[in-house]
C-alpha cells in the first residue's frame, strides 16, 4: 500500500483529502503544518507527498526546500497543492523543485488523486 503524507492546515480540506486517498488505496498520513510533515516524512519515508503552501510554523515552500536539502528525502515526489495562483508563487515552487503543482479549487478530489498517482509514477522513473 503506497504511503502518502497530506500536509494541509485546513481541517475540512484535510478530512476530504484523507478520506479520498484512503478510498483510493493509500495509507494516508495527515500533517497540519510543515514541521509535522517533515517529521512524519523522516519516520515513514512516504512514496509521495502533497504540500499546501500557506501553512503554520513552516510553509509549503520552505518544507519543500528542507526536503530537497535532505539526501534521504530529496527523491520523494512532491505535488504542491495550493490556492495561490499568482505567477510569482508558481515560479517559486517550481524553482524549489516540486514535481508538479495543482490549483486546489480548480480540481475535483478525483482529479487530485489521479494527479498524485501520476506524480508518484513519474518519481519512480529515473530521470
Amino acid at each position, binding site marked *: 500500500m503506497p504511503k502518502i503524507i497530506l500536509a494541509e492546515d*485546513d481541517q*475540512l480540506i484535510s*478530512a476530504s483529502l484523507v*478520506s479520498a486517498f484512503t478510498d483510493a488505496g493509500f495509507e494516508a498520513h495527515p500533517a497540519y*503544518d510543515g514541521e509535522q510533515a517533515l517529521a512524519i516524512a523522516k519516520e515513514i519515508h512516504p512514496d509521495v507527498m502533497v504540500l499546501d503552501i*500557506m501553512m*503554520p510554523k513552516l510553509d509549503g515552500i520552505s518544507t519543500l526546500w528542507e526536503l530537497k536539502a535532505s539526501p534521504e528525502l530529496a527523491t520523494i515526489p512532491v505535488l504542491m497543492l495550493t490556492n495561490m495562483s499568482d505567477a510569482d508563487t508558481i515560479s517559486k515552487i517550481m524553482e524549489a523543485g516540486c514535481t508538479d503543482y495543482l490549483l486546489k479549487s480548480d480540481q475535483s478530489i478525483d482529479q487530485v488523486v489521479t494527479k498524485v498517482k501520476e506524480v508518484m509514477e513519474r518519481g519512480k522513473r529515473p530521470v
Partner: protein
Amino acid sequence: MIPSILLFLDFGLLGIVFFVYFRRTLRERNKLQGQAEQSVQLQQQVYQIQVLQEIGERIGYSLDTNKIVEIITSSIGTLLDYDTVTYLLFADPESMIFKCHVHNSVPHRFIDEVKNQMLQSISAICGQEVNLANADERITGTILDDHLNSRPESYVNVPIIISDQLLGIINVASSKKYLYGNSQAQVLYSITNQAATAVTKLESVLENEKGRLASTLYSMTDGVFMVDLHNQLQVYNPAVVDLLQLRVVRGKDITMFDIINALAGKVDLRTKIEEAVEKHMPIVISEVYLRDQALELTITPVRDQQGEKRGVSVVLHDITSEKALEKLRQEFTAMMVHELRAPLTAVRWSSDALLKTLADVKAKPDNAKLKESMANISTATINMLELVNDLLDVAKIEAGKFELNEQDYNLVEIVTDQVKIFEAQVAQKHLTLALIAPPNCRVKCDKVRISQVMDNLLSNAIKYTDSGSIEVNVSIEAQSNRAVVAIKDTGVGVTREDLNQLFSKFKQLSSSDRSRKGTGLGLVVSKGIMEAHGGRVWAESAGENLGSTFYFSLPLEK
C-alpha cells in the same frame, strides 16, 4: 533722457517681476498635479537657479554695468557740452576697462590727462594706488588730432557705486573753461545714482529668488542635483548625500564621481545621462535598491533658452515606504484569495465525496461518512459567510456607508448573552471564563453590531489563549460618562509594534505565524463599529506571551 534710462531699467525689473510671478503661479498649479510633474518642476527650479545665478553674475559685474555706463555716456551729449566722455571700470580684481568716447577732436595728450585725473580720483576714493597696467583701453568717436593744443580745462568725475561697491568712475571733459558747475555735476551724479539703484534693486530681487529656491531645494526630502556636460556637479541638495549615503569630508563638496560610485552596480548613471541628453527625453529608473532603501531616479535633460544642451538634472525619490505598502497590499490580497478559496475547496471536495457515496446505488450508504461530508460543507459555508460578511463590512466602513440601528439597551445583557455562547468553546480548551459587571448599564447602540464586536474580541481571546483564563469586565466611567468593556486573556500577547497595527486592514496579528487562522478583518470591522457608535476600541499588552486586554467603550445614555 533720464526717463528713457529709467524706462529701460523699469522694463528690466518688470520682466524679472513677471518672470517670478509667472513661475510662482506655475509652481502653485503644479502642486496639484502628479508626482511626475513635480519632479519636472524641481528640475526647472534647479535650472532656474543656474540661469538666475548667471544673470546675477552678468549684471553684478562686467556686461550690464558696461551697458548701463554706455547708455549713460551716450545720453550725456544732449545734456552737457563736452569733448570726451570716459569711463574706467574694474572688470575684475586684476584688470580694468578704460573707454573713452571722443566727441570733438582732441590730441592724445588730452586723453592722457583725463586718464590721470581719473586715476588720481579713483585712487583717492579707494585709498590706494590704482594703475592701468592690465587695462583694456579703447578710444572711439572722432579721430584724434595731435596738432591741436587743447587740454581738459573743465571736467567732472562721478563714481559708479552698485550695491555699496565701487565699480568705476565716469569722467566728462571739455577744453572750454568754467564749463561745469554744480548743476552739471548733479545731473551726471543723479543719472549714475539712479542706474546704480535700479541695478541694486534688480540684484536684491535676484538674491531673494535665489535664496528662496536654494532654501526650497535645501529642505526638500527628494534628492536633486544638476550635472553639466563635463560631468561637473552644478547644484545638489543635502538629500542627495542622505539618500545615496555618501560620505562627506567636512567642508568639501561631493563630486559626480561620488554619486556614480554610490550607484555603481545598480545603475550605470553615466550611460543613462548620455542617453537622456542624446534623445532629449526624460528617463525614469524605478526601483533602484540601495541597502534597505528603494529609490526612483528621474533624469531630465536641461537646455538653456537658446536650445543649447546644458546637462541633466536628476531627482532621487525615496519609494521605500510605498514599496513596503505595496508589498503589504499584495500579501493581504494573497491571503484573502487563500482564505476565500479554502472554504470553497472544502465545500467542493466534500460534495464530491457525498456524490460518490450516493452514486453507488447498490452499496448501503455509509451514514457516518454522509454525515461527515455534510458537516464539513456546513462548517465551510459558515466560515465563508463570516469572511464575506467581514469583507462587506470593511467595504461599507471604508465607503462611509456604515449604518446603525440604535436602540436603548442594557449593555450588560448583550455582553452576558455573548459570554454564554462561548462557554462551551472555553470549556473545550480547558480555560476559565469570568464575567464581572454591574447589574445595569444603559446605552444607546445597535445590539447586533455590539454583539458582533463582543463575538470578535471573545473569539480572538479564546483563539490566542492556550491556557489560563479569560475575564470580561463591564465598568462605568462616570468621569468620561462612558461604559468600558474589557476582555482580558492570559494568551500570546501582542508586541508593542503590533499593537499599533492591530486595527489596520492590511495587518493580521502574527502574520508570520499563521498557526491561528484568520484574516484579522474582525478587528478592522470592530473598530469601524465602535467609531460609528462614537466609541473606541483599543488593546493593551505587556508583551509577547504576557496576555492582552482588548477594550471597547460606548458613551452612556444621558
